[in-house]
């Protein structure tokens, strides 16, 4: 009977991804994308104290990997398989023959799931490596700078990457953008759903990686650099090297969200990777939730993404409620929320707690039979000096 009831519930479940279900998939997808960026930012700023204002450059590297490398590899494989494509060698052909070529590639990928999955894994792997390389390159001038200058350098680097994409059509079709092959075309249903599931899975894996790193001795070292880098340097740690490693690692992870965004939209254009979206919104999520802990990052991300998607979807319905154009509502919320949080809750909704190392029994450490009697120390010193006779300094004093 229970099975029948459950079956009845299953049959009554929605089967079409449209309307509200489409909105849910959309929110889940962008939650997955932005939670990866926000967690990487929390890793850099919340734990290592590196104020990375260049998240956009790392995301754009992921998107450019798909548009410039995966698409070319796909075309080479298709031509190797004997499928006739239009020429795509020159910049002009690359942009204007893209629609036909991508359409042909999609037809091939529909029946070749293995190729689609292989290209997807290739994109992720290359994006991580290229993201790490970019992290290394941006760290060269950046890690020796103090917070303010570091932020400015990273902002300019994010803009520089956009300028590259805008002016070199071979990367992402220049100002027109370009379509990319649908790597999940083999999936019989709505490719947005599988994209959302994969993105959430990647977010979950990233979370476990960051959690493991933060609970390791390296994570504690990162926190100590955040608190006082001079002290850490004075005990022989390579502060510059550690900051570089952190930037490289977080850049590699952030590039994954660029890949997933490109695959979800099947289109890459540099204008879609503005720093306002891929840098300032993750910063707001981090500051809203509370830097230094993953729970705060998740809470901030969930709140902001839901808010933004609801505004985008229902903006025409709520336009009559506002005296200004609804297009500015997002920006007003960004600025307003930031001001409110900084005034009333500067530590975020979930403030950072003391460091907790799993597996270590704190109460056992504290209750250990180690008696530290600091109050008796001066007395013992005086007593010891008196009994032993004059100390080394005393004869000198007597002479004086």
């Amino acid at each position, binding site marked *: 009977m229970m099975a029948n009831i459950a079956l009845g519930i299953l049959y009554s479940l929605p089967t079409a991804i449209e309307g509200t279900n489409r909105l849910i998939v959309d929110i889940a997808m962008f939650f997955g994308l932005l939670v990866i960026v926000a967690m990487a930012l929390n890793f850099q700023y919340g734990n290592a104290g590196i104020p990375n204002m260049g998240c956009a450059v790392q995301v754009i590297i992921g998107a450019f990997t798909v548009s410039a490398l995966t698409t070319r590899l796909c075309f080479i494989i298709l031509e190797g398989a004997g499928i006739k494509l239009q020429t795509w060698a020159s910049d002009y052909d690359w942009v204007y023959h893209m629609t036909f070529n991508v359409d042909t590639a999609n037809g091939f990928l529909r029946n070749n799931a293995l190729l689609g999955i292989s290209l997807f894994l290739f994109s992720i792997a290359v994006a991580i490596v290229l993201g790490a390389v970019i992290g290394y390159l941006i760290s060269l001038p950046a890690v020796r700078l103090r917070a303010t200058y570091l932020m400015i350098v990273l902002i300019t680097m994010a803009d520089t990457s956009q300028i590259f994409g805008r002016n070199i059509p071979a990367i992402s079709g220049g100002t027109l953008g370009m379509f990319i092959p649908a790597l999940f075309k083999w999936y019989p249903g709505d490719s947005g759903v599988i994209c959302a599931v994969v993105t*959430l899975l990647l977010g979950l894996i990233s979370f476990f990686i960051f959690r493991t790193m933060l609970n390791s001795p390296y994570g504690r070292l990162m926190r100590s650099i955040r608190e006082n880098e001079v002290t850490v340097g004075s005990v022989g740690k390579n502060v510059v090297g550690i900051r570089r490693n952190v930037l490289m690692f977080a850049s590699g992870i952030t590039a994954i969200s660029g890949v997933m965004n490109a695959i979800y939209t099947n289109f890459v254009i540099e204008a879609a990777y503005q720093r306002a979206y891929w840098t300032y919104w993750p910063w707001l999520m981090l500051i809203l939730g509370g830097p230094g802990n993953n729970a705060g990052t998740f809470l901030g991300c969930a709140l902001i993404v839901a808010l933004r998607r609801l505004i985008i979807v229902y903006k025409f319905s709520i336009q009559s409620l506002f005296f200004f154009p609804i297009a500015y509502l997002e920006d007003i919320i960004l600025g307003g929320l930031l001001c409110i949080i900084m005034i009333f809750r500067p530590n975020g909704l979930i403030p950072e707690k003391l460091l907790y190392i799993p597996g270590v029994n704190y109460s056992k450490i504290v209750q250990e039979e180690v008696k530290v009697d600091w109050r008796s120390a001066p007395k013992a010193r005086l007593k010891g000096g008196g009994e032993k006779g004059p100390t080394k300094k005393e004869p000198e004093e007597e002479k004086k």
Partner: protein
Amino acid sequence: MYIAQLILLTFFRVAQEDIGAQYDNILFYMMIFLWVIMPAFIVYEEIKERRALAESERASEASTGEEAKAEPSEPAEKKGGRAIFGRVKNPFSKHEPNEKKE
């Protein structure tokens, strides 16, 4: 048993005509599950850590309180413990490190 039957029947449904929609159905709920499980796990872990920290803080407060109750003039050696300055060579002490007092 019921769950196994349910899973089997769910997969049989996949083999029906509208295969894309059936896959969508399964993945949609898998997505919701992932979406729920991720924050739930993080919140659970956060609560666990905060509880452990609070417990350790309480334990530390209790041990500090015990020390405060003890006579302040009494040296640590007399209480059965060992003063931390006695472990290393103290230039002001007549004892050697770890030397037992007769």
